[in-house]
């Protein structure tokens, strides 16, 4: 099994973090994994994306031409990456900030940003999206992600772990979009 995921949105949405949490969870499970950031002159408010490949075998290119899954968090990313979805792949879209029109693609959408605001922290939209992704693709176990969150958080910030875990859980519980 090899799963190629492109995660894209705007700087500040936690795009890189979403990818890192997913990649580290795969590492936790002993899988082969690569994480490749777009490392240009990215700034808050600009566009940001990263590529994650998770596999049971050694990984060739960390660069993804065609993705099995796209996680799209804003409109510019939708326009840029939707042509790069594999046949049979799924595109998960943050409908708070992007409105996908392509009917030929397998699109699953939820307003992750609005949902994050309701949870009390707009920044966790990324973790709701990750939860929803794991609901659709069993690439890694939710348990592994929760463990990684605990490891990654700064000491003394249990509040951050809690809100992120709540967000992940909210995503996992969403019905298939």
């Amino acid at each position, binding site marked *: 099994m090899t799963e190629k995921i492109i995660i894209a949105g705007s700087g500040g949405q936690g795009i890189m973090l979403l990818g890192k949490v997913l990649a580290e969870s795969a590492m936790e499970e002993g899988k082969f994994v*690569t994480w490749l950031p777009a490392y240009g002159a990215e700034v808050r408010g600009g566009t940001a994306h990263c590529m994650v490949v998770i596999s049971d075998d050694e990984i060739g290119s960390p660069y993804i031409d065609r993705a099995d899954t796209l996680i799209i968090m804003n409109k510019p990313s939708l326009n840029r990456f939707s042509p790069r979805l594999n046949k049979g792949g799924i595109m998960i879209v943050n409908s708070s900030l992007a409105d996908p029109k392509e009917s030929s693609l397998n699109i699953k959408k939820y307003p992750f940003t609005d949902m994050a605001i309701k949870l009390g922290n707009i920044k966790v939209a990324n973790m709701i999206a990750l939860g929803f992704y794991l609901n659709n693709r069993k690439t890694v176990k939710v348990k592994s992600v929760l463990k990684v969150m605990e490891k990654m958080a700064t000491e003394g910030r249990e509040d951050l772990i809690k809100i992120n875990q709540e967000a992940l859980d909210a995503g996992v519980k969403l019905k298939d979009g």
Partner: protein
Amino acid sequence: MSGNEAIAEGAIRAGCCFYAGYPITPQNELIGYMSVHMPENKRIFIQAESEIAAINMVFGASAAGSRAMTSSSSPGISLKQEGISYIAGAQLPAVIVNIMRAGPGLGNIWPAQSDYFQATRGGGNGEYRCIVLAPSSVQESFDMMFSAFNLADKYRNPVIVLGDGMLGQMMEPVWLPVAGCRLPVAVKKPWALTGCKEREQNIVKSFYMHEGDLEKFNLLLQKKYAQIMDSEQRYEEIDTKDAKIILVAYGSMARIAKSAVKSLRAKGIKTGLIRPITLWPFPVKAFQQANRQTGEQANYLSIEMSYGQMVEDVRLAVCGKARVEFLGRSGGGVPTEEEIIKKVNSIK
């Protein structure tokens, strides 16, 4: 861990005592990691005022017997060439990491392999060689730093670790030996400038004024280079024994080539891969062996993130005994698996 961080951690564990550098993308995580962990381990970290200053600090630290290193990316490495030439001329060990970006000039920050000639042919003035190592994964980036420092000390010669932006920036799991940072490796350096109380004076120089002296010295260098070419060729080969087409690629490019070999084999096309790990000395032995095994029936395809540099060494290595084709992109473009497969199909 990213490739840049793995190189830095590897260097510290391999006993690097002195690091001087100047920031440049895409190798910033390397200098960033060093700035935190070198002082933590009571080693010297200096953010120099320029690349030129950094390489000359390495020159000095190495002359004093320290395991010394600098790192940069393509345009910064160009600035260091004078220093590298002096280090080679003074027969000093040093490790220089180049996380290549695309050029010429300021170019851009995307991955490329266009500094192959610069790294393998010397790069600065005068006739000298650097040992050039090319890791292809984050794990190998870590592991290779031990070889880099050991080879530098063994031959008293600069060693270049040649990576690219993709390798520097990507993260992969890395297995680190359990023991923490090791103490500096005790390598005897009787030639080092350590203060000459109670012994003869040591002189470190790359300047030979008297007629005939420099020629004598250069012949000594050539003898050393011949020994390195003979003993230090390193490479990985995959499925070459029965191959009709052997791909040749190094660094990040080799990973993509490896995927292409798998896909082509699955379709019944007999493909193999030679991945040079030392770019200088170029692993000529791998080609001689492959030619013997295939009865000189295999063709070669050199795949690079440049417009045909390593392919020249491939041609020299096969010595006219096989067809050598080329596929390359540069300026930030990376040949894809699809493009490789298409090219292979056009050759067979």
